[in-house]
C-alpha cells in the first residue's frame, strides 16, 4: 500500500495522513512511517473522531462516546490519505470527509483501507486496499492491532 501511495503521489510535498478513530489512527502512523522510509521525508499525521458527524444519533441506544479530533496541520491544499481499518457501508468515510472539510479545503482526499468487506450504502470506493474480503451482512469483521489490542489480526465473526 505504501508503494502505491508513493506511485500515485508524484508531488509528495503536499502528502498528509489522517487516521479515523480508533484503529485508523495507528494504521495511519504505520503507513506514514512506511512512506517516509521510501521517500526519506516526514509527513504530518492527524486523527479524526467522527462521532459528531454521524447521521445515526437517533438510531443508537445510547449516545456515542465522543473524542477530540487532532489535526495539527493545515489541511488546505494537502493531498490527504484517509486511513481506516474496515470499509463497510461507507457512512464513516462520508462523515470523515465532511469533518475534514470543516478544518479546511484539501486539494484531494484519498482512501486507504485494510479490509474492504463490501456492502456499500454510498458511492465511495477506496484508492488503496489491503485485502478485499467478501462477507455476509450478518458477519462482523474485527481488526486487531498491536498498538491497541496487543496483536495484529483480522477476525471474521459469525
Amino acid at each position, binding site marked *: 500500500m505504501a508503494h502505491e501511495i508513493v506511485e500515485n503521489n508524484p508531488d509528495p510535498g503536499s502528502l498528509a495522513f489522517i487516521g479515523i478513530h480508533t484503529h485508523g489512527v495507528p494504521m495511519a502512523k504505520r503507513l506514514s512511517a512506511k512512506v517516509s522510509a521510501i521517500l526519506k521525508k516526514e509527513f504530518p499525521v492527524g486523527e479524526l473522531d467522527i462521532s*459528531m458527524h454521524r447521521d445515526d444519533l437517533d438510531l*443508537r441506544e*445510547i*449516545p456515542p462516546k465522543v*473524542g477530540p479530533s487532532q489535526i495539527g496541520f493545515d489541511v488546505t491544499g494537502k493531498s490527504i490519505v484517509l486511513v481506516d481499518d474496515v470499509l463497510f457501508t461507507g457512512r464513516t468515510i462520508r462523515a470523515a470527509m465532511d469533518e475534514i472539510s470543516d*478544518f479546511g479545503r484539501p486539494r484531494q482526499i484519498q482512501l486507504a483501507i485494510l479490509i474492504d468487506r463490501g456492502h456499500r450504502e454510498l458511492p465511495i470506493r477506496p484508492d488503496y486496499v489491503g485485502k478485499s474480503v467478501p462477507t455476509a451482512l450478518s458477519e462482523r469483521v474485527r481488526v486487531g492491532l498491536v498498538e491497541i489490542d496487543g496483536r495484529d489480526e483480522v477476525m471474521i465473526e459469525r
Partner: protein
Amino acid sequence: MSAVTWNHKDLLGIQDLSPEEINFLLDTAAAFKQVGERTIKKVPSLRGKTMVNLFIEPSTRTRTSFELAAKRLSADVINITASASSIAKGETLKDTALNLQALNADIIVIRHSAAGAPHFLARLLKAGIVNAGDGAHEHPTQALLDALTIREKKGRINGLKVTILGDILYSRVARSNIWLLTKLGANVTLAGPSTLVPRAFEQFGCRVTYDIEEAIHEADVINLLRIQHERQRQTMFPSIGEYTAMFGLNKERFARTKPDALIMHPGPINRGVEIDSEIADSSRSVILEQVTNGLAVRMAVLFLCSGGRFSAEGTE
C-alpha cells in the same frame, strides 16, 4: 474505553448524577471544546433538531451560551423570554410547555425562578429538559463548566481544596458545585457572612467557616460568588462596603493565597465588591476560560440529552 454511558433525556441537576456520569460528561465536553478551535466551528450532530431557550428569569450569558452551543451543533434555536411572551399575558408554565411540545421541540432549556420547574416539565413532556438554573436550587451546567476548568488547570479534582466564598444561601451555583465537587472527591469549604452561609450546609459534606483568611490560605481553588441582591428579601449584611472589607478578595488577601491557587467566578463579576479589579484580570484568574468551557459543556449536554432516546437497534 470506559463502559460508562449516558442514558438520560434530561439534565435536571448534579444531585442525581453518579461520579462516572459526571466524568463522562466532562470527557464529552473536552471533545466538543476543540470544535470551537476549527476553521468551521460547527458540526452536524443535531441537524434538524429544535431547541427552545425558555428563560422565565433574565439571563444573558447562560442563554447566549446555550444558543451558541445549539447553533454549533446545527440545531435550530428559538428564544422565549418571560417579558416578550404569552407568560406576560397570564399563560401558565404548563400551557407554555404544552404549546412547545405541539411544535415538536426536541430540547427545552429552562431557567425559572421557582426551584423544581425543570423537573415539572421533565415529567410533563417528551422533550429533553435541561435545567439552566431553577431558583436557588441547581445550575448544573455552571458546576460542570467549573469542574472542566479545574480539571484542565489542575489535572484532577479528587483531593483538591476548593473554597466557595460569598452568597451561598441564595446561590444555585453553590449547591450544584458542592454536589459535583464532593462527588468527585474534592474537599469543599464554604465561607462568607454567617447570614449567607448557614451551618446547615455542612450536611452536604463540606466545611463551613466564617474566617476568610483561613478559608483562602490553603485553597487550591477559590470560587467567588456574587451577592444575589435580586434574591435577598432583606439585607443580610450592613453594607456593600462592609462586605468588601470583610470578605472581598483584595490584594492583601490575594497575596496570602497559595501561589498556584485558581481564582474563579461564575459572572457577572462586580469589580471592587467581591473581587479586586486587578485580581480579576490577573494570570491566575480563569474567569474567561470558564466562559469558553461553558460553551463546550453545553454542547456536550445538548448532544447527550438528544441521543439514543428512540432506541432502535444500535448500529456499529
